């Protein structure tokens, strides 16, 4: 079965290491997700903040393109895109009228039956079983698995993991030899799209996350969302000045962590692109 790949704007711009490591990991396990040709932006937070119709139409174009190009399932590593695409498909399935109208505007099929996989679901389905036999260097570190908001909420739509204290990432990390810590900030908001417009809010919210992870002895924060990653990583100078302490815990994508364990090179995984260096990994 052909799996489509929707990188979305973040993976295509500010977080190339997430795309790189996802594709490198897939390749190591013999899978080649195919990029959806001519994909466009899902609208992200901006669209549903300003314009409800746009917030449906933009993701709908992506869903329709995927269907037209013959994919029955797509991998969407960005948690924000995964959320927007899933919420839109769910909404359109609730209104046949709207779905048909959009299919007509788009002049593409829109059956509403696409399987939309986030990165954990993808790894669970295609990679997890074979991880054990491929491990070269166990990832023997204490880690804080940070899920953020958009992977697990709203649960009624996404039906993925559980909205409080989710476990899927912890289970995958344990498979590569890591010790996931128990902590309170797994699904607390990092400040999301306020990175530029309200950097102070991001410093504060992300600061609490970095602080709790650090204090509980985690050596790395593991993430599956480019927005969370860049808030926790690129905004570290702001975070540190909010916390009034120098923190050094790196923020590593789950695809990079598993990639390292199965022996993919640091370069291929884009580890040097992290702002807070992941030296000890």
């Amino acid at each position: 079965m052909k799996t489509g790949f929707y990188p979305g704007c973040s993976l295509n711009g500010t977080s190339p290491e997430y795309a790189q490591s996802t594709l490198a990991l897939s390749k190591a396990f013999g899978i080649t997700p195919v990029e959806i040709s001519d994909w466009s932006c899902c609208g992200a937070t901006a669209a549903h903040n300003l314009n409800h119709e746009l917030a449906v139409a933009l993701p709908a174009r992506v869903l329709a393109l995927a269907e037209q190009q013959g994919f029955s399932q797509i991998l969407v590593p960005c948690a924000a895109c995964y959320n927007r695409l899933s919420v839109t498909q769910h909404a359109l399935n609730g209104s046949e009228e709207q779905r048909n109208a959009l299919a007509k505007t788009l002049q593409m099929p829109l059956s509403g039956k696409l399987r939309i996989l986030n990165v954990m679901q993808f790894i669970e389905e295609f990679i997890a079983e074979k991880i054990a036999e491929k491990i070269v260097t166990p990832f023997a570190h204490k880690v804080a698995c940070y899920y953020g908001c958009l992977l697990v909420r709203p649960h009624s739509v996404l039906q993925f993991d559980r909205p409080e204290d989710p476990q899927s990432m912890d289970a995958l990390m344990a498979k590569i030899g890591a010790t996931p810590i128990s902590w309170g900030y797994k699904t607390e908001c990092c400040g999301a799209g306020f990175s530029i417009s309200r950097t102070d809010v991001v410093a504060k919210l992300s600061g609490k996350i970095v602080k709790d992870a650090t204090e509980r002895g985690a050596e790395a924060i593991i993430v599956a969302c480019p927005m969370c990653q860049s808030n926790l990583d690129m905004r570290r100078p702001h975070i540190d000045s909010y916390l009034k302490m120098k923190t050094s815990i790196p923020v590593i994508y789950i695809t990079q962590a598993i990639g390292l364990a199965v022996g993919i090179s640091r370069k291929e995984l884009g580890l040097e692109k992290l702002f807070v260096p992941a030296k000890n990994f």
Partner: protein
Amino acid sequence: MSEKKELTSEIRAATGVNVNRCYQCGKCSAGCALNESMDYPPSVVMRMLQTNSAESFDKTLRSQSIWLCASCQCCIARCPMQIDIPRLMDYLRARALEKKTVNRNSKKIVAFHRAFLDSVKYTGRLYEVGLVVGYKARTLSLLQDLSVAPRMLMKGKLPLIPERVKGRKLVKKFFQP
């Protein structure tokens, strides 16, 4: 009285949310990560809508809270009545834009969203440099945030050439009302 009825039913018609089902337990505010930065906590916004007075409604439309809501969905996940506050916030934002009552201290947030969408409108995808330039032009905050740009460039995290989607004409059409 007739006006009273109108407000809550208007909200319900537009969003599907019946604000009167909220019994003010406060769980939404307790869990809201943005609560501390808001002028009215989410449960208070709910209460203001319940009062049904035009004055309170107007206050919500002028609040910072509606712009600071990050749509993190924590409130609805924990609300015993499963009240869709994030959907209400979307609605209140739309009304505030329409009525031009955007909170003064939240204009930067709106400017950011607008600059983001402008970029998508013309190319079909986000173009970060264009986004930042557009945002700065809208907010006149020319020097803010330039500190991360050089490192981003160095790490290949800031592409300088916009990508154009072939289907961008259609994408642009979505933006027309």
